[in-house]
């Protein structure tokens, strides 16, 4: 009997806690995100997204949360779980969630959703916003820096999985290298993974042995290995998504930043101000500071090269240079 009474009390206690808990936060705006299988600590864009949400939490006093996915089949149920939890806006981080978000959004037309790296174009449901980045632009700029600074006339690119999204990094980078240094050779390889750091290290080591002295990666967690290889061999690596200089301050030359955090922060502000606009796609580029090169670039890149990069940035913003994002565009690109 005693045991029973105790359980009873615990239940009442829990129920009370839940009731009051709900009352206290009822008025706040709530935003949550679903990560892809990389998880929230991936040193890359999931983490960047979460940082953006945390910043929004601090500045706008909203409530934020996240839910990690462990397999493809988790995306839709994770969306559903957060929908039930009563969040005002639910983010899907990564284009792999494209189908899951669309399907969930169609069944729950009163719930707001947004997705990073995916555009539904004309078919965007009224309760969804797509957010895409012009990754080829910062890749072009870091490529230009690599082309200018290589002493071996040979640079490398390590990609994650060969998705068109990652090819935007690859061709943007290649165009930048060729623009700076038409005779420079470019080694390019995909790791077929976004998580296997050991593989990234092996590929980068191989490139350094073949004579490359700068390697740019667009490969999420694989890049940790690339940067480690640069550190051990005393060569240069170029980071991606975030400013990755902190991972190896003497060996990360610069980073092609993709400000997922800014995009998410921006959206939180719009939601708070009542400017949320469903059924649309937002494009982030150099022009609205959605992408760029790392602020720490000045540490290793000479001022005259950075000045040239600034000029190129202006040209890209004006539309005088349209950076190639695919193989076809790259082949047609005039240097």
């Amino acid at each position: 009997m005693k045991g029973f009474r105790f359980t009873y009390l615990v239940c009442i206690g829990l129920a009370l806690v839940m009731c009051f808990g709900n009352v206290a936060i009822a008025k706040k705006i709530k935003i949550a995100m679903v990560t892809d299988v990389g998880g929230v600590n991936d040193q890359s864009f999931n983490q960047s997204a979460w940082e953006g949400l945390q910043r929004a939490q601090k500045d706008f006093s909203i409530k934020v949360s996240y839910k990690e996915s462990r397999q493809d089949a988790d995306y839709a149920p994770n969306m559903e779980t957060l929908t039930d939890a009563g969040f005002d806006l639910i983010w899907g981080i990564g284009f792999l969630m494209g189908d899951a978000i669309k399907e969930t959004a169609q069944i729950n037309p009163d719930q707001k959703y947004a997705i990073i790296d995916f555009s539904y174009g004309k078919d965007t449901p009224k309760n969804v916003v797509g957010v895409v980045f012009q990754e080829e632009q910062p890749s072009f700029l870091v490529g230009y820096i690599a082309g200018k600074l290589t002493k071996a006339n040979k640079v490398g690119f390590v990609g994650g999985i060969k998705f068109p999204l990652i090819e935007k990094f690859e061709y943007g980078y290649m165009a930048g290298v060729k623009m700076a240094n038409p005779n420079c050779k470019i080694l390019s390889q995909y790791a077929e993974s976004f998580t296997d750091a050991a593989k990234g290290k092996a590929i980068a080591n191989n490139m350094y042995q073949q004579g490359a002295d700068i390697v740019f990666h667009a490969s999420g967690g694989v890049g940790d290995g690339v940067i480690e290889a640069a550190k051990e061999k005393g060569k240069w690596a170029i980071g991606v998504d975030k400013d990755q200089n902190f991972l190896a301050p003497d060996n990360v030359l610069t980073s092609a930043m993709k400000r997922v955090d800014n995009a998410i922060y921006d959206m939180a502000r719009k939601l708070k101000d009542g400017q949320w606009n469903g059924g649309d796609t937002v494009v982030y580029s150099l022009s609205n500071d959605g992408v760029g090169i790392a602020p720490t670039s000045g540490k290793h890149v000479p001022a005259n090269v950075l000045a040239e990069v600034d000029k190129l940035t202006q040209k890209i913003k004006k539309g005088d240079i349209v950076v190639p994002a695919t193989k076809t565009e790259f082949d047609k690109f005039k240097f």
Partner: protein
Amino acid sequence: MTLDAAALKKKFLSGSIGLTLISIFLGFALGAIVLLAAGFNPLEAYWVILKGIFSRPKYVSYVIIYATPLIITGLSVAFALRTGLFNIGAEGQYIVGAIVAAAAGYFFKLPLILHVIVAVGLAIIAAALWGGLAGYIKARFGVHEVISTIMLNWIALYLSNFVVTLQAFGKQGTGKTYAIQSTARINLLSDWKISEAGIEFIRSHKMLGDVLKSPINVGFIFAILLAVLVWYVLNKTTLGYELRAVGFNPHAAEAGGINVKRSMVVSMLFAGGLAGAAGAFQVLGVSHRIAKLAAMEGYGFDGIAVSLIGNNTGAGSVFAGLLFGALKYGGSKIQDAMQAPTEVISIMIGIIILFVAMPNLIRLILTIKANRASN
């Protein structure tokens, strides 16, 4: 009367079901300690999990959806284990089944029910051959099935990733294949759900509408039928008798006139086919396409745990699969509700499985020892 009850209780606790239930309880208890150590209130966490499983009809339906592939891969592992083979390859066989089902579902244009039968049938055949290959090279060349199936898992994974890149099959820019035709789907009312009438219905009918929000499909019914089939084949047929005899003691079985090599191949064919069916139902009922995999998804590996928890039987796999599905689905909810990192959930689930598997592991070790001694 009281004496009888006590005797009954003792019998129950020392029986396999009793041992399993004790293990589950112990697992939850230790999981609570881990949660406490990580700074989370275990009572609250378990309450969140319970609510996350039972508080809405939709959640129950999601648990069933999560459990379906695990039940079937559990059956696959269980079937092979009964013949003394450790089918670590359920993962790869699952992937092969998924590839074939997705391809048959997309490329063929067939009428409603026939399309499903063809897609599932082809998936089962392909995965059976994939599994049977491991059985064959064990029987023919003596290559241990654990080694060969692990290798075959990786081949299946990269084969799957390669197939997704093919122009005709993979949808450019999505990292996924084209969705299967609607005739190949085993979902209930999937088109109607997103029509205006459907959305209206979901809004106005709380219970039913809620269930409809999950991708409900008939895969679970097939999983139960397959469990019955496994039970029937193993316990009621000559073939099953032979397979089990080989599992108990291959030398005695051979002396008794059973073709041990043939049994190995047949057992792996069956096991492969089952895991392939799991992949097929997952594609036809839930994902509708296959995606590039950054890593193994673990349906086959979870099947090993399900089989162990279920005592390598058909019915056991169904219940263990449901438990596993519930923990996988409900367990993840402590993340968004309490901000507990997934690692804690994984540790918790791992401990439960460890305890659940312990009596059987011990039993397994004992049987192997007994077999060695008798040899």
